[in-house]
């Protein structure tokens, strides 16, 4: 679902942190938990923990870019999730499991999406 600009504005106005994070939980379980685990603790030696992660809680630019573009074993979600959804799922990860990051606003995602160079990796082909 892609929000139109007026709807996005309304959504932004209503998006207090708790609301962003609450919606983000479901998105997190759907898209992230397979690797980072529902607990946010990841799997040592395989998938990085988000709980307690400096990167996850720090400057939102880095986590937003990783979700948009992917990195290492992580896929790009730029065509899977819209800006509001990315803001929600990142806010959830930044304020849950004892994390104390600031919420991410959809506009911050929008700004980076525009600037983000698409992945140069060709789309996955069947083997």
């Amino acid at each position, binding site marked *: 679902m892609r929000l139109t600009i007026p709807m996005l504005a309304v959504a932004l106005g209503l998006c207090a942190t708790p609301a962003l994070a609450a919606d983000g939980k479901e998105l997190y*379980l*759907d*898209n*992230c*938990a*397979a*690797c980072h*685990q529902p607990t946010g603790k990841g*799997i040592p*030696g*395989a*998938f990085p923990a988000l709980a307690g992660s400096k990167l996850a809680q720090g400057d939102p630019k880095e986590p937003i870019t990783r979700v948009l573009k*992917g*990195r*290492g*074993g*992580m*896929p*790009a*979600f730029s*065509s*899977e999730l819209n800006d509001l959804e990315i803001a929600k799922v990142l806010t959830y990860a930044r304020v849950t499991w004892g994390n104390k990051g600031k919420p991410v606003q959809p506009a911050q995602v929008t700004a980076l999406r525009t600037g983000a160079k698409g*992945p*140069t*990796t*060709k*789309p*996955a*082909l*069947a*083997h």
Partner: protein
Amino acid sequence: MNPNLMNSGAGVSRRSFLESLGGMGGSALLMAGMSALGFGIASANAAPPELGAGGKGKKVIVLGAGVAGMTSAYELSKAGYDVTIIEARDFAGGRCQTARKGFKLTELGGEAQECDFDDGLYINHGPWRIPYHHHSTLHYTKLFNVPLEVFVNDNDASYVAFAKGTGPLAGKAIRKGQIAADTRGSAAEILAKQVKQGALDQQMTAEDREKFLAYLTHEGYLNADLAYKGTDGRGFDIDPGAGVDPGPGKASMPYPLADLLHSNAWRVLSSVTGYEQQRTMFQPVGGMDQIAKGFERHVGKLIRYSTLVKKYRQNDKGVEVTVAGPGGKTETLKADYCICTIPLSVLRQMDMGVSPKFKDAIGAVSYALVGKIGLQMKTRFWEEKHSIYGGHVYTDTPEINTITLPSTGFQSQKGVLLGYYNFGASAAKISALSPRARQDFAAQGGKLAFPEYADNVETSFSAAWHRIEHNLGGWAEWSDDSRKDAYPILCEPDGRLYLAGEHLSHLTGWQAGGIESAWQQIAKLHKRAQAA
């Protein structure tokens, strides 16, 4: 096609119009190029390097008993090297696996699965098809007497079941051959009528035009009026048969081009198949792991199973690999050289005493998220009710992607089909589900094509390669940048360490990539060992 060509009547001769379509230098040059190639498909990678003897007294440790590791061990030990293979799992093959009754898998963060298919049924949840030009893979299937059968990689009778298009064909399952006949027939009709009306008279000689029309008529099954009205190859509404009823049967009518275009079903078509994907391919009889077992028959005695690599160190005298065996007992093995076939996704998190440049390069590649599920069906309804024997059902649901019908066991009672083959974010999503929930999801994925699909599901086995320990991904996915910067570094040895595997090839994700990379690296290692 170059759009300028359509307006090129003034500047380009009529002959060179057709020639210019063939590429830079026209068809004369094309022909020269073809004969220069000798029409040959002979490949530099068709056979292992001739190492001869001379490896005697030299020790090599191979990390990983997948096809790259076992290829290295087989060829090096034949040349006299003293080879030890370290394998984390209690079986050989790496990703060359087959799930059948009793096969166990616990994904990282997941529930334990034990495959409970009926005897004789299996799913190749790793590699599953072999191109005819993967001479290296076929070299070993022949050498190790692994019987092959045809893998049906394209089937005109199978369905395209797209739900997301528009128009009357959206949300319907349509036979692929009908889509092919009707889109090509209609496209040929449009083009032929334009040509007939003189649209290309400025560009073509009369002779070329007649030949081109003859081709279009043939290609598109056009009638004398250059109209496409269907063709017997797209099937009949009533099949022809004996006597007067059904007698000649009743011809089927083509779908209108506009409906096909808006359904998006044409997206699965191309005039030829891809380089890696041919219409018929191969699979080993009885499961892909027959290849692993073929290797294992020859190098199994060199393998230390259930043994984890803890640390790698090297200096100008040799290498030291610290391993933990099945009981957890640690020991340090010494050798002259090491061949490491561990996927880079795993290797980048290991304690490797390599140069900083090499270490950075190891971390520069992405690995594919890939999910597959085998569904055991209690009847072969796709054969019995739909007359589809092998091939793929195409969907436009990315979490399902394709459903693949088995190319083996035709007309037997039950079968295992591939219920989804998903990638990237779609694979991440589905892999978050429990095995049971994956099965329930997959059971709904085939209903557009087959109304009886969900009711036939008995049991399943699923694998999400990004969550499988010792693999952490389906295959390497190099970006343009990392292919340029990191890849060449990793193709050369770091000290006494040689990497090999599908990730160090341009055949990523294919067993041939692993084998041919091993061939290259052992040739380099051998040359160096001989000189030492």
